[in-house]
C-alpha cells in the first residue's frame, strides 16, 4: 500500500452497497459526482454480471439486443472508480453493532454507511409443482437465458400473469418461435394499468400477433415428472406446456434486512431521506418501502437514489416525497401508456376517445380540475406531456378537450405555458426513464455542451435513445434552454472534426493546392488530428477527384470493402464479383468461373441484381488467389464506383428492339470501368421503351426510342424509389456517350461524398444540371477531365496480386510462437 493510501484511510469513510443493481449503482454514481473521495466503496452483488439495465431485458428477449448491449456500468467502470466489487457473492449477514457484513464466500467488510439495494425477486406462486424444472420468473439475465435455451428444445410456453411483465415475456417467447399462451386471473389484460376498453384493444392486437389468452383462469397445479408438462386450472381444464414463466408480480427482497433487525413491512421501511430504523443503514430501490409504497419502476428508484446520494455526500436535499408513476409498454408495435389514477371513481370525471378503426383509445381522468390519470392506446405521443400535467397538478379546467385531442393550447389558455412548466420542473426529475437522464443533464447538454437539436442531446446524454417516449419533453426542454438558438442552423461541417462544408473544402484544396489528407486536415485546422471515419474517406475522394494524375489513393482512408476490393458480409467472409461487360459472358468464361468456385469450395454462386455473377462466402485469405485464377477484372461490386451497366437484348435478338442496347451497354461499361465516384453508380441500357433493363430507376438510364436515345438521370431503386428524370434525347451513339460521360463527371465534381445521384439531383435540381451541361464546350471539357482520370486507373485486383506488400494484409500473421520468459 502506498503512503497516499494510508493517509486517506483515516479520513475516508467506508461505504458498503448490498446489491449491484440499477438503484444502488445509480446512487453510487451520484455520490461519486457529488463527493468523489468521500468513501471507500465496496459492492456485493448476487448476480455474476456488472450493473445492467433490467428494463431492457425484454428487448434482449424480443431479439436485436444482446446482453452486452444492456450493461450500464462495465467492469472497467468499477475499476476506474476504485470500487471493490464482489460479483456473484451475496451478503448473508449484517452485524449492525460491529458495523460489518459477511458474504456467502466469507468476505468480511466493515462499513460506516451501508446501503441496502437488494431489489426484488419474481413472485413465484406457491402452487403444487412450482419447483419443477421449466418453471421460472422473468427477472434477470439468467431467466432470459433459460427462456432462450428452452425455445431451442421446446415448443409450448405458458406465461402466468397478463400484466406488463407477463406480456413482455410472452412477446419475447413468441419472437423465439414458441407457441405462447398467457393465463390471467382477471377479465382483461394489464388491469392494473389499463381500463377495460384499452385492455380489450390490447388483447385484440396481441391475438393478431399470435399470442393466445386464457382469461379469468386460476392455476391450481403444475404437473409433470421432473419437468413441467401441463398446467391444471381450478375449473379442471388443462393446458399442455413445456415452460412456465411466472409473471404475477415482484416481491421486495427483504430477508437479509429482516434477519438483521431492520423494520420491514412489504419492503424495508425508510423515511423521506431513505434512512432505515438503524443508524448508518439506508435502503433504496425496489427493496425499500416509502410511505407504504414499494416501487417497481425505474424513475422513482432513481429519484430515491438521488436523495440518498445527496444525503450521504453531505449535500442539501428536500427529501423524497414519493412519485407518481407512468407505464409504457411498447412491444412489437403496440403502444400503451398509463399514468396516475386511471380508473373512474365517484369523485372523478373522465373524458375519452375510442376509435376502433385506427385502434386508438385515449382517456383522461380529472378530479377537482386537475388531471390525475390517463390511459393511451395506439398513439402514445401525448404520454409525456400528460404525465407532466399529472405531476405538476395544475388546473386544466376548460382545456380538457384540447389536451385530449392534442391541440396545443393557445395564448388565451389559463394554464401555465410549456416554458413555465419546464421551468417549474425540478432539476433532478428523470426525463428519460430508460436511460435515467435528468432534466439537469439535458440542461447541461444544451447550455454547456452545445447541443441544439434533439439528435445532439440524444447522442450526448442518451435521452430518448431507447423507447423514445420522452422525446416531446426533450423537445420542450430544448426550447426552454436554448431559446432562439433552436433550429437555427448552426454551421455544420462534413463531420464533427471540422466546421467546413463540402464546397468550402473542395474550394480550399484547389486554391491552396493541398495534396494529401493530412495536409488538408493540418491547414484547415481539423479538431481531430487524424480525422474520423466520415471525413477521411470524403477527403480521399475529393483529393483524387481534383488531382487525378498526382494524388496517390490513400488505402487507410477507405472503408473495409474498398480496401479489400470485396464486399464484407455479415459473417466476416467476402464476395467476389468479376467484371462481365454488359452482362454478356461466354461458355469459356463460365467454365473458368465454375472451376474456380469449385476449387475454393465457394458456398454460393449467385446472379446479382445487376446481371453479374457473385461468388459469396469467400475467406479473406483466398481472395487474391481467386482473383488470380479468375484472371478477370474487378467488377467493383464493393465500391463507390461504377457498378454495372445492365442491358436488355435489344435489336440483336428482340423483335421489339429498336437499337443495339447490348453494344451500347458494353461500350459504356468498358469506358467507365474503374471510375470511382462520390457513391456507387448504376447504369442500364434498354433497347425500346418497354424498358426491360429497368433503366428509369438507375443513376443513369439510356432508353432507345425509334431513331433516338433518351437519357434519364437520378433514378434509384433503393430504400426510397425515385424515378429517373429525362435529361435529354439524342440521335447518335456518339452523343449518348458525350452526354453520359459529361453528366457523370459533373456529378463526380459536384456531389458530396456518399451522395447518390438521386439525392444530389434532388438537392441541386434537374434544371441546374441541364443548364450546366447545355454548352457543348463545357461537355467536352468534362469528358476530357473524365478521360484523364480514367487514364490513371489500374485494376485493383491485379495490383494486389502483384504486390506482396499489399497482399500480406489478406493473411493472418503466420502464428504466434511462445517464448520462454
Amino acid at each position, binding site marked *: 500500500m502506498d503512503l497516499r493510501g494510508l493517509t486517506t484511510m483515516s479520513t475516508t469513510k467506508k461505504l458498503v452497497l448490498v446489491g449491484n443493481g440499477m438503484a444502488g449503482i445509480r446512487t453510487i454514481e451520484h455520490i461519486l459526482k457529488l463527493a468523489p473521495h468521500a468513501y471507500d466503496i465496496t459492492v456485493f452483488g448476487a448476480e455474476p454480471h456488472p450493473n445492467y439495465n433490467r428494463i431492457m431485458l425484454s428487448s434482449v428477449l424480443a431479439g436485436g439486443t444482446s446482453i452486452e*448491449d444492456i450493461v450500464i456500468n462495465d467492469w472497467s467502470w468499477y475499476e476506474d472508480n476504485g470500487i471493490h466489487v464482489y460479483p456473484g457473492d451475496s451478503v448473508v449477514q449484517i452485524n449492525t453493532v460491529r458495523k460489518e457484513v459477511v458474504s456467502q464466500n466469507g468476505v468480511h467488510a466493515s462499513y460506516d454507511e451501508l446501503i441496502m439495494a437488494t431489489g426484488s425477486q419474481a413472485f413465484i406462486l406457491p402452487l403444487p409443482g412450482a419447483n419443477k424444472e421449466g418453471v421460472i420468473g422473468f427477472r434477470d439475465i439468467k431467466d432470459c437465458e433459460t427462456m432462450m435455451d428452452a425455445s431451442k428444445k421446446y415448443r409450448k410456453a405458458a406465461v402466468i400473469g397478463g400484466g406488463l411483465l407477463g406480456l413482455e415475456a410472452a412477446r419475447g417467447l413468441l419472437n423465439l418461435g414458441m407457441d405462447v399462451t398467457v393465463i390471467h386471473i382477471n377479465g382483461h389484460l394489464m388491469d392494473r394499468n389499463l381500463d377495460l376498453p384499452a385492455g380489450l384493444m390490447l388483447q385484440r392486437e396481441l391475438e393478431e400477433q399470435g399470442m393466445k389468452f386464457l382469461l379469468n383462469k386460476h392455476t391450481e397445479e403444475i404437473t409433470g415428472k421432473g419437468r413441467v408438462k401441463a398446467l391444471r386450472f381450478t375449473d379442471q381444464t388443462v393446458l399442455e406446456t413445456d415452460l412456465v414463466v411466472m409473471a404475477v408480480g415482484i416481491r421486495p427482497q427483504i430477508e437479509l434486512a429482516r434477519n438483521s433487525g431492520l423494520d420491514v413491512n412489504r419492503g424495508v421501511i425508510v423515511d423521506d431521506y431513505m434512512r432505515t430504523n438503524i443508524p448508518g443503514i439506508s435502503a433504496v430501490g425496489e427493496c425499500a418501502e416509502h410511505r407504504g409504497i414499494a416501487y417497481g419502476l425505474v424513475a422513482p428508484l432513481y429519484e430515491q437514489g438521488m436523495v440518498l446520494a445527496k444525503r450521504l455526500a453531505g449535500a442539501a436535499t428536500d427529501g423524497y416525497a414519493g412519485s407518481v408513476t407512468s407505464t409504457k409498454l411498447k412491444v412489437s408495435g403496440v403502444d400503451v401508456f398509463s399514468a396516475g389514477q386511471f380508473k373512474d371513481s365517484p369523485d372523478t370525471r373522465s373524458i375519452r376517445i375510442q376509435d376502433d378503426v385506427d385502434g386508438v383509445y385515449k382517456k383522461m381522468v380529472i378530479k377537482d380540475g386537475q388531471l390525475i390519470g390517463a390511459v393511451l392506446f395506439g398513439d402514445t405521443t401525448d404520454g409525456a406531456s400528460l404525465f407532466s400535467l399529472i405531476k405538476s397538478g395544475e388546473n386544466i379546467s376548460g382545456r380538457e378537450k384540447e389536451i385530449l385531442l392534442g391541440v396545443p393550447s393557445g395564448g388565451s389558455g389559463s394554464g401555465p405555458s410549456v416554458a413555465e412548466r419546464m421551468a417549474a420542473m425540478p432539476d433532478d426529475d428523470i426525463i428519460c426513464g430508460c436511460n435515467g437522464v435528468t432534466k439537469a443533464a439535458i440542461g447541461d447538454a444544451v447550455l454547456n455542451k452545445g447541443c441544439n437539436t434533439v439528435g445532439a442531446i440524444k447522442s450526448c*446524454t442518451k435521452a430518448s435513445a431507447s423507447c423514445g417516449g420522452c422525446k416531446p419533453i426533450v423537445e420542450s426542454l430544448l426550447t426552454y434552454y436554448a431559446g432562439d438558438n433552436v433550429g437555427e442552423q448552426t454551421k455544420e461541417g462534413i463531420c464533427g472534426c471540422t466546421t467546413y462544408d463540402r464546397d468550402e473544402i473542395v474550394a480550399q484544396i484547389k486554391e491552396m493546392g493541398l495534396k494529401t489528407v493530412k495536409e488538408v486536415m493540418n491547414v484547415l485546422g481539423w479538431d481531430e488530428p487524424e480525422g*474520423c*471515419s466520415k471525413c477521411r474517406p470524403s477527403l480521399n475522394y475529393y483529393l483524387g477527384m481534383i488531382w487525378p494524375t498526382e494524388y496517390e489513393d490513400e488505402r487507410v482512408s477507405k472503408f473495409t470493402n474498398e480496401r479489400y476490393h470485396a464486399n464484407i458480409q455479415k459473417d466476416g467472409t467476402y464476395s467476389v464479383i468479376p467484371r462481365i461487360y454488359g452482362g454478356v459472358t461466354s461458355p469459356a468464361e463460365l467454365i473458368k468461373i465454375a472451376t474456380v468456385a469449385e476449387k475454393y469450395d465457394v458456398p454460393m454462386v449467385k446472379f446479382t441484381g445487376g446481371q453479374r455473377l457473385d461468388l459469396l462466402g469467400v475467406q479473406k485469405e483466398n481472395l487474391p488467389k481467386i482473383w488470380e485464377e479468375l484472371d478477370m477484372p474487378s467488377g467493383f461490386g464493393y465500391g463507390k464506383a461504377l457498378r454495372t451497366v445492365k442491358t436488355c437484348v435489344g435489336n440483336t435478338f428482340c423483335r421489339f428492339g429498336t437499337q443495339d442496347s447490348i453494344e451500347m451497354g458494353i461500350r459504356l461499361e468498358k469506358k467507365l470501368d474503374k471510375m470511382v465516384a462520390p457513391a456507387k453508380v448504376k447504369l442500364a441500357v434498354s433497347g425500346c421503351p418497354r424498358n426491360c433493363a429497368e433503366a428509369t430507376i438507375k443513376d443513369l438510364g439510356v432508353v432507345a426510342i425509334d431513331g433516338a436515345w433518351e437519357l434519364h438521370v437520378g433514378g434509384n431503386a433503393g430504400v426510397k424509389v425515385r424515378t429517373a428524370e429525362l435529361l435529354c434525347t439524342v440521335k447518335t451513339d456518339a452523343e449518348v456517350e458525350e452526354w453520359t460521360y459529361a453528366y457523370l463527371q459533373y456529378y463526380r465534381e459536384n456531389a458530396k461524398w456518399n451522395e447518390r445521384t438521386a439525392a444530389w439531383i434532388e438537392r441541386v435540381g434537374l434544371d441546374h444540371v441541364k443548364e450546366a451541361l447545355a454548352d457543348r464546350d463545357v461537355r467536352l471539357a468534362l469528358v476530357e477531365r473524365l478521360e484523364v482520370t480514367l487514364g490513371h486507373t489500374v485494376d485493383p485486383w491485379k495490383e494486389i496480386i502483384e504486390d506482396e506488400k499489399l497482399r500480406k494484409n489478406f493473411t493472418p500473421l503466420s502464428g504466434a510462437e511462445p517464448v520462454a520468459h
Partner: protein
Amino acid sequence: MSKFRIGHLADIDKKGARTFLVEDTEIAVFKLSDGSLHAVENRCPHKGGKLSEGMVCGTAVHCPLHDWKIDLRSGKVHEPDDGCLNTYKTEVDGDSGDIYITIAG
C-alpha cells in the same frame, strides 16, 4: 502469463492491422501513425465486428460494422457508446524488430 513472438515490425502497415490466433482468441495488432503498436481482442464489444478491418484515426479504430469508435490504448469505447475490450501488452525488440505480445492468465 505467456509471451509470444507474433511477427516483425514490417509486417504491419501504419494505420493498419494484422491478426493472429492465440488459443481461441483472435487478436489484432495495430500500428498507429506514430509507429506504436497496440494489441486488442479482434471483436467489437457491440456486435463482434472485426476491428482489424476498421479505419484507424489517431489512437482509435472505427468498427467496420456500425462505426463504434474504440480507443486502442485503453480498449475503451468512445462516448456515447459504452464498452470495453481486452488489450494486450506489446513489445518490440529494438535490434531485430520482432514483435512480442504478453497474454495474462
